[in-house]
């Protein structure tokens, strides 16, 4: 082995170490002299600093977008409430049938707008981490009972039987109760929405070694195979759902919540045979309770 090789190897090792530090975010230029390696260190330092600034700039921009969304939602709250209020007042006047119909349309759309803005705010807050989801071990049946209690009103309006196949009361999973209830409720609401009158929506729990699975099955028209992976995308709606109210954020929000809890969500469906949405929540294991 000659000196050149040893020197080269040492240099490469040093470079490898520098890159390791850069990846770990702990890089600092160590030497300031006339050697080439010192020059490389300085340049790398500059490069890393610039990337850091660029990243910070992007983060600031994102922050601004989220603030904007939150401002818009806040500022629109009062006008929307007012529109609804005046609509109600208008409807109490003696109106012709046509006028009543039109007032109804205004009220409907004001409600839609209200719902959309609320969903947007939730999504935005969730994405920006303003709302921190903290999964802790919680009772699965209690969470399901809560979601059913809230979903029952929507179901009875359509004469849909909302049932819960009993399971062990002691089952626990990692969840943020408030948000997971919202996720499950979104899925239940979605099932109710796409199930015809007198249909059924059932909830069932299965325990696996690592996950607890909550199935929400319906007797709706099902989802086309090519649409299956799209249903959780933000603002995605099936072409044939145009007649149903909604903006396509419920399932997206449900998915984000479940992922934030360390679980996942999936859907199985057969055209004409209904759909099964499955929520998988991680089971707490001893090392996770620290």
């Amino acid at each position, binding site marked *: 082995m000659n000196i050149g090789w040893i020197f080269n190897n040492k240099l490469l090792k040093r470079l490898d170490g520098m890159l*390791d530090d850069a990846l770990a975010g702990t890089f600092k230029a160590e030497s300031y002299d006339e050697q080439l390696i010192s020059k490389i260190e300085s340049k790398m330092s500059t490069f890393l600093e610039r990337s850091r600034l660029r990243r910070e700039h992007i983060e600031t921009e994102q922050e601004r977008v989220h603030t904007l969304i939150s401002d818009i939602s806040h500022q629109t709250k009062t006008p929307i409430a007012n529109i609804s209020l005046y609509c109600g007042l208008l409807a109490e006047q003696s109106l012709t049938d046509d006028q009543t119909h039109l007032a109804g349309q205004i009220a409907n759309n004001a409600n839609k707008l209200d719902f959309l803005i609320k969903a947007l705010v939730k999504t935005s807050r969730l994405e920006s981490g303003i709302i921190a989801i903290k999964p802790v071990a919680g009772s699965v049946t209690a969470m399901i009972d809560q979601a059913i209690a809230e979903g029952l009103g929507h179901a009875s309006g359509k004469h849909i039987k909302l049932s819960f196949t009993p399971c062990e009361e002691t089952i626990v999973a990692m969840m943020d109760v408030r948000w997971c209830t919202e996720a499950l409720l979104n899925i239940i609401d979605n099932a109710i929405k796409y199930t015809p009158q007198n249909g059924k929506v059932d909830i069932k729990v*299965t325990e*696996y*070694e*690592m*996950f607890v*699975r909550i199935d929400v099955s319906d007797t709706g028209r099902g989802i086309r*195979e*090519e*649409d*299956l*992976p*799209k249903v959780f*995308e*933000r603002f995605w709606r099936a072409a044939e759902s145009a007649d149903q109210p909604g903006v396509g954020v419920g399932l997206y929000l449900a998915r984000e919540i479940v*992922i934030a809890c*360390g*679980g*996942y969500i*999936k*859907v*199985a469906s057969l055209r004409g045979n209904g759909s099964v949405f499955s929520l*998988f929540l*991680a089971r707490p*294991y*001893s*090392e*996770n309770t620290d």
Partner: protein
Amino acid sequence: MSVLKTIDLKKHYDTGAVVKAVDGINLAVESGEFVSIVGSSGSGKSTLLHLLGGLDRPSSGRVEIGGKDIFNMKEDELTIFRRRSIGFVFQSYNLIPVLSVMDNILLPIRLDGNKVDMVHVDRVIKALGLTEKRTSMPDQLSGGQQQRVAIARALASKPTIILADEPTGNLDSKTGMDVMGLLKVGNEQFAQTIVLITHNPEIAQMGSRIIRIEDGQIVGSAGSNGGV
């Protein structure tokens, strides 16, 4: 950004009659995607996965991983490239029986002489529920647990892409769903790009995109192409 791309990929076998196992597949997988490839047995899906992983050479066409044409490399270059860029999960778990769970997980990183990112490895081990099994030997684990170790090993080195070939083939359906769930969580939490091959439709639904192949050709695909 596509991390995996195939261009008119073909694998033909000439055994008297020509068998077209893979017959002109063009596929692009985006960073962070979870793509399922489904097809019946004999559809060519396993051959495709072997080509994607550089385990087998194509008759014609290209496979690019991270923008690099993998069949342009020499055999020993390809071996190192595979170790650094691709994580494999097979039906058989391929754990080294004389190494502990932890050593099995760290093996590919150590083979490469790299500094182990213990923060990442600990996160992976925790996510896969293996913290208490770190010092166990493979033969002390159930099949599902062994496959979890194999998945942890694939995730630990932060590969460009994980290729999984019927990872639940040796597991009962309940354990299979469990193991797949962990792969899914790995995809979500670590933004790990995954290509999964399976004949099981329920398992395929874990993917954000499902590609169906028959007779060596893509016959259908569902889902979002690219990042959401």
